[in-house]
């Protein structure tokens, strides 16, 4: 969290249909579970799947009144590395801030790609093969839930227990116990990755 701010701000870059909105909403529910104040909202372009989307998340110990999009994030999450070609994902990210990205690329490869595209991000990059983890544990590509584990590990702003509890509350009935457990296992695996 920036020194001058009392709100932790996140931007999720994804493509329509990849479930970034769900990711942000689970985090919002988990934040509420911890009695924090939250705000999560999408900035859809045209509503079609595959188009680049941005989703915003704010978490604070105080009431959040602003409704402007997040312009100066503390953390950026990228759910699809092909977005590096078209989106300025590291915009306004400072050197003490973080970028989490779902990719098979190594950290230096992501950084090179950002530099190629004119980005000058000096902060820490956390690549994670969330799609791969999801396929091997859940059997389906669900990087949007897996990445929750990495979010908790990197940000430290939400507790893992809250994520798991809220995930279970929202999805156990919908997914069935077995499938829900697998999702949670994948989230935990992402939390444990270096």
């Amino acid at each position, binding site marked *: 969290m920036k020194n001058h701010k009392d709100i932790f701000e996140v931007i999720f870059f994804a493509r329509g249909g990849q479930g970034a909105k769900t990711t942000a909403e689970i985090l919002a529910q988990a934040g509420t579970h911890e009695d924090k104040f939250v705000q999560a909202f999408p900035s859809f372009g045209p509503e079609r799947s595959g188009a680049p989307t941005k989703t915003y998340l704010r978490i604070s110990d105080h009431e959040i009144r602003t*409704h402007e999009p997040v312009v100066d994030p503390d953390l950026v999450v990228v759910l699809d590395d092909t977005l590096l070609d078209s989106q300025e994902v590291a915009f306004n990210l400072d050197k003490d801030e973080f970028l989490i990205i779902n990719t098979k690329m190594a950290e230096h490869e992501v950084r090179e790609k950002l530099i190629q595209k004119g980005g000058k991000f000096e902060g820490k990059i956390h690549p994670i093969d969330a799609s791969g983890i999801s396929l091997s544990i859940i059997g389906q590509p669900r990087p949007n839930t897996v990445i929750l584990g990495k979010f908790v590990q990197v940000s430290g702003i939400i507790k893992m227990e809250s994520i798991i509890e809220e995930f279970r509350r929202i999805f156990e009935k919908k997914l069935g116990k077995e499938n829900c457990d697998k999702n949670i296992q994948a989230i935990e695996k992402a939390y444990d990755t270096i």
Partner: protein
Amino acid sequence: MNKKNKKLALTGGAAAAEALKQIDLDVMPIYPITPQTTIIETYAGFEANGEVETEMIKVESEHSAMSAAIGASSAGARTATATSSQGLALMHEVLYIASGFRLPIMMLVSARALASPINIHGDHSDVMGCRDSGWIQLFCENGQEVYDKTIIGMKLAEKVKLPIMVIMDGFNTSHSVENLEILETKVVQEFVGEFEAVSPLLDTENPVTYGAVALQNSYFEFRIDQEEAMKNAEEEYEKIAKDFEKISGRKYDIFEEYRIEDSASSADRAEKIMVLTGSAAGTAKVVVDKLREVGEKVGILKIGLFRPFPHKKIAESLKNAKEIIVLDRAQSIGTFPPFYSEITKSLYEAKEIKNIKSYVYGLGGRDIFQKQIEDVFADKIEGGYIK
């Protein structure tokens, strides 16, 4: 936190649906359109899970949705629906029937731009298009207000026998997850009370006619009655909102004064007052806090009740300002924007001549940033558009 209140994280649309569930609707005719989606989707979920006994009528257009609402409400049912944009425009013809029949129909509007060009995002063009249709119109800033004003609004509509639109910003509010506290269902139901329809069609012991012809000798009087009922809604709103404060701890005046009187001393009174509504009011409050910190005397008048428009009270609130800045999220093509027109009328009627600036922002979902609001306060934006 009040022990009775439960803190949740919900979209504005889901907050509206939650309030409607607690109010206990009899009938909800629906036709889908973005971005009111979150409202009827959530309510349909309640219906599917057996949490409500409401009869949801799936119709083939918004014109039919409003027509079905008029039928249900005249039959004596507590009725609500929801819409946006072209959907509201398509209802236009029948909106006047609902208000002319004096039916307390609740309509949640997730306000959105009008085509053409096609745009699914938020602005206030749709609700401004029916500001003369005889409906009460009540604007909300966030999900908490949507929840609270749906409850207040239902009671108000039934009290003054007029239909009501409770308005949230499309996407900005309808699709934004925010924290809110909800009341216990029992408390809400006691507050709103049983719906007792006046002269319902299904009261066959006392047959009545709805929609009769009224010609030169009586039509005029019907219209005057409607105007009187609407004027009366201002006072009734105040009473109901006061009672609501008792059960919720949340205060909703006809409009909100934010840091206009910043302390007991008149020296701290705002010299520049920004008038606006909806989700942008929250953003503007943060800017006002920042500017107040560096000693600038600024404040906000946030519009809540827009129909009836509280001219006298607004003029009273603005009378000490040196400069008034009015932000509209709609145009009135060919004349001044809606809020600006109302504010100038209020001040003229009160014989207050002021320096008033008019800006239009946020059309078709264009974002508005704190930086732009700061620039407006600093008089750095020319041409009347905050683009």
